[in-house]
C-alpha cells in the first residue's frame, strides 16, 4: 500500500506545532497502525530526522496508551484501540490525518503524545476502595449477585485511554469517571466510600478543566470497549444521592 500521512508534529509543550506530510510506501495491510508508524519512523531515523513520538505499551488493546485521532475519529475508523487497528481498514492511496487527543486537560507533550495524568488524579481523588491488605480473603467470603458482577466487569473494561474525552464535543471525562464509579459501586466493597467517592472524583474532574457532559453519546460510540452511556447516568444519580445523604 501507498499512503500519504499528515501527522501533527510538535517538538514540545511550548511549541506551536503543525501538520507535516509524509508519503509512505510498502505498507502491508496486515500491519497494525502502530507498526505502520514504526516503519515510517525507521525511515525517518535512517534519514537522520526526528522520529514521530507516539505512545504505546501493550500493543494488545488493554493498556490504553496508544490513543490518537485518525481522520477525525478517536482510534480511527474501527471500534478498537489504535494498536489493534490494522491497515486493511484503509485503502491504497488513502490520505490519513493523525493528531493527538485535543483537550486542555490533556496537554500535548510531544507530537502525538499527550499527558493524561489528569485521569490519574481523578482516580486518586476516590477511584479506589480502602481495604486492609494482608492475606487474600476467601473468594466466597463476600457474595456478589451475578447481575452486579456482570455490570461491574462491563464498567471495569475501561482502559483509561481517553478516547471518550477526545471524541466529546465538550472534552468531558464523564464516561471514564462513570465507568470507575459504576465499577466500584456495584460491589459490596465499594459501598462504604460510595458517597465520598463520587463527590470527590467529580470535583477533581471539573478542577482538571474537563468540560461538562451534554449526554450526546460520542464518548460511548468512540469507546474501544463499548462502554454504554448509562454509567454516566449512574454517576449522576450517585451524586444526587450523596448530596441527599449529606444534607
Amino acid at each position, binding site marked *: 500500500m501507498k499512503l500519504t500521512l499528515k501527522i501533527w508534529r510538535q517538538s514540545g509543550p511550548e511549541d506551536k506545532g503543525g501538520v507535516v506530510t509524509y508519503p509512505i510506501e510498502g505498507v502491508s495491510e496486515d500491519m497494525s497502525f502502530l507498526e505502520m508508524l514504526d516503519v515510517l519512523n525507521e525511515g525517518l531515523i535512517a534519514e537522520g530526522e526526528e522520529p514521530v513520538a507516539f505512545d504505546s505499551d501493550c500493543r494488545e488493546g488493554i493498556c490504553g496508551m496508544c490513543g490518537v485521532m485518525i481522520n477525525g475519529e478517536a482510534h480511527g475508523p474501527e471500534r478498537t484501540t489504535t494498536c489493534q487497528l490494522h491497515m486493511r481498514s484503509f485503502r491504497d492511496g488513502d490520505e490519513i490525518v493523525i493528531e493527538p487527543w*485535543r483537550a486542555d486537560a490533556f496537554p500535548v507533550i510531544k507530537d502525538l503524545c499527550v499527558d493524561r495524568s489528569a485521569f490519574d488524579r481523578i482516580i486518586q481523588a476516590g477511584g479506589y476502595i480502602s481495604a486492609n491488605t494482608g492475606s487474600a480473603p476467601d473468594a466466597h467470603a463476600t457474595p456478589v449477585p451475578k447481575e452486579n458482577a456482570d455490570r461491574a466487569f462491563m464498567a471495569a473494561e475501561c482502559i483509561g485511554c481517553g478516547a471518550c474525552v477526545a471524541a466529546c464535543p465538550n472534552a468531558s471525562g464523564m464516561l471514564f469517571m462513570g465507568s470507575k464509579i459504576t465499577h466500584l459501586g456495584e460491589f459490596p466493597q465499594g459501598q462504604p466510600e460510595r458517597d465520598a467517592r463520587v463527590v470527590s472524583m467529580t470535583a477533581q474532574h471539573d478542577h482538571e478543566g474537563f468540560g461538562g457532559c451534554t449526554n450526546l453519546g460520542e464518548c460511548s460510540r468512540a469507546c474501544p470497549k463499548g462502554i454504554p452511556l448509562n454509567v454516566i447516568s449512574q454517576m449522576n444519580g450517585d451524586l444526587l444521592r450523596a448530596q441527599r445523604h449529606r444534607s
Partner: protein
Amino acid sequence: MATSTIDAGKRPKTGSILLKTVMAVSGLIFVGFILAHMYGNLMIFAGRETFNEYAHHLREFGSPMLPEKGFLWVMRITLIVALVAHAGSAFALWSRAGKARTTRYVQRKGQWATFVKRSMRWGGAALLIFVVFHILHFTTNTIQIGGDYDNPADRLLNSFGVWWAVLIYLFAVACLGMHLLHGIWSAGMTLGLNRSLDAAERLRLTAILVAVVVVVGFALPPLAIFLGLIP
C-alpha cells in the same frame, strides 16, 4: 477510610453535574408548563367562546382563595426563576466547554452530536429571543399583528392570518421540538434514570413522544387559523 493526598486546589464552585441538575429540573418545569399551555391553545378548536372563557378562567383560577391573577402570577414567577436558572446554567456550561478544548482538531469527522449540541445551544438562544417576542405579542400587546381585536380569541385569529407571524411561530415550535428531543433524554440522564440499556430505550421513546406531541399540538392552531379552518 483513606484520604486523598493530592491538593484539591482551586475547584470550580459549582460542579458541572450540579449545573446540569439545575437545567434538568428547570427544563422539566418548562415541559409541564408547555404541555398545559399547548392544551389551552388547542381550545381554540372548541370555538371562540370556549377559548375566551378559558383565557378568563386563567385569571380567576383558584379564586377566591387566591387574589385575581394570583395563580397566574405564581406561575409567572416560577417560570421566570426557572428561565433564569436554566439559561444561566446553559451559558455557564457552554463557556466551560469552550475552555475545555481551546486547540481545535485539524480534521473532525462530521458528527451528528455536534449538530445536536449546536441545536441545543443556538436553538435554546433562539427560544430565549422567541419567549421575549411572544410575551410582547400575546401578553403585553406591545406588538400587534393583524390589527385590533376585542377579545383573546380574535387576537389569535387576527395574528395568524398573517403569514410571517405563522412562520415565526412554526420556526419557534421546530426549535422547541429539537430542544425537547435531546433535552428530555438529557434530563433523564442527568437525574440518574438511565441505568440499563432498556431504560435508555424507554427514555429515548419518551423524549420522541413528548417532542412529537408538542410540535403537533403547537403547530395545529396557527396552521388551522391561517388556512381558515376556524370560523
